[in-house]
């Protein structure tokens, strides 16, 4: 099972990103544990400066803005 973290202080786009990750995972039929990280300290320590950021299994794959759905699939299946 993949561990996905969505980093964001709670803006609209961060929530949309979280929903998107879940939707894409469901579409791919994958089991994914999605965790929302909203503590600014943890966000910064993960190396994320522009939110929302996404990490998959501890590896940062995206920062800043809504991700592209096709790319998101790529990160989840990589």
């Amino acid at each position, binding site marked *: 099972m993949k561990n996905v973290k969505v*980093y*964001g*202080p*709670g*803006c609209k786009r961060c929530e949309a990103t979280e929903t998107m990750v879940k939707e894409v995972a469901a*579409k*791919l*039929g994958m089991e994914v544990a999605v965790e929302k990280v909203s503590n*600014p*300290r943890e*966000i*910064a*320590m*993960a*190396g*994320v*400066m*522009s*939110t929302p950021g996404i990490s998959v299994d501890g590896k*940062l*794959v*995206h*920062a*800043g*803005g*809504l991700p592209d*759905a*096709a*790319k998101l*699939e790529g990160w989840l*299946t990589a």
Partner: protein
Amino acid sequence: MTIETHDTATDTPADRGLDDWRWVLGVSLAGLVLYVLYGQLIPFSEWVTGLFPVDRESHTGEAIAFFVYDVPKVLILLTGIVFVTGVLRSWFSPEKTRAILAGKSQIWGYPLAAALGVLTPFCSCSSVPLFIGFVSAGIPLGVTFSFLIAGPMVGPVGLGLLYGLVGWQIATIYLVFGFSIATGAGFVLGRMGLERYLQDWVRELNAGPVSALPEESLTLVDRLRIGLEQVREIVGKVWIWVLVGIGIGAAIHGYVPEELMLRIMGGEAWWSVPAAVVVGVPMYTNAAGVIPIVEALLGKGAALGTTLAFMMSVIALSLPEMIILKQVLTLRLIAIFLAVVASGILATGFLFNALL
């Protein structure tokens, strides 16, 4: 991987080429339409004003004319500026900016940070992770402040609207002084050795892991798409501020007598500059909302220095921003920050009131 998921329409190179064409053509066409509409604003607004059962020369007639002229004008300008800015900024990111600024502690760090503050896309909602990311990578506090001040202070929306609504001379003055304040305030703050006034946990952070985020390669269409997304998001969010700002501008334009304006915001009254700052800081709006007010104030004879001070403090110093930064800065540091930036704004205001 066997699951067919994405639509295959855009996957073959030939189709992708067609898609590119459609985008470029669509964007050019939209630009042309906006340009033509922009040229018809005066006849359009006069026609709409004529529909109201009021005398065109009356106070109400003037206010209505101002409103129906400015609303489409600002919305068209805003759309264009936000789109172009969105596309240009797709070449920049906070991560790249941090890499550029890290290790530049010498004097050039300040103006460079201010310039990158204008060009780097970041929303105030992520200013805390951004701040920590900068400081933990060893970027000096003062340089970080230059970056954070310049972003809102000399943002493209404010400059572009100032250019379209008030004229290039004042837009240029604003650019030069806004940029100087961002650079100078960062420099002064950097010299004061304020690191000890950061919140404890921020000081204890060691150089954070400068993670290597794989560069996402973007095509031209991707960048145009980003621009369009920005338009949808920003114009969708600020239009209400635009209407309120233009409403206030229209009321000033129609009803406020010039003698009163000269008395309150004229260059003679020395206290008008600090008063403009005091009024401006708690006002929470954005550049798009405040520039129509500025337009009306200047039209009624408000002094340039006073008006500049008002505009700068509204745009660059906002209480909600301070509250967000409270997570990383102590109150004392916030107060020093406010005082230094406000001094720069006051100096600009006094200078122009004295010169003109």
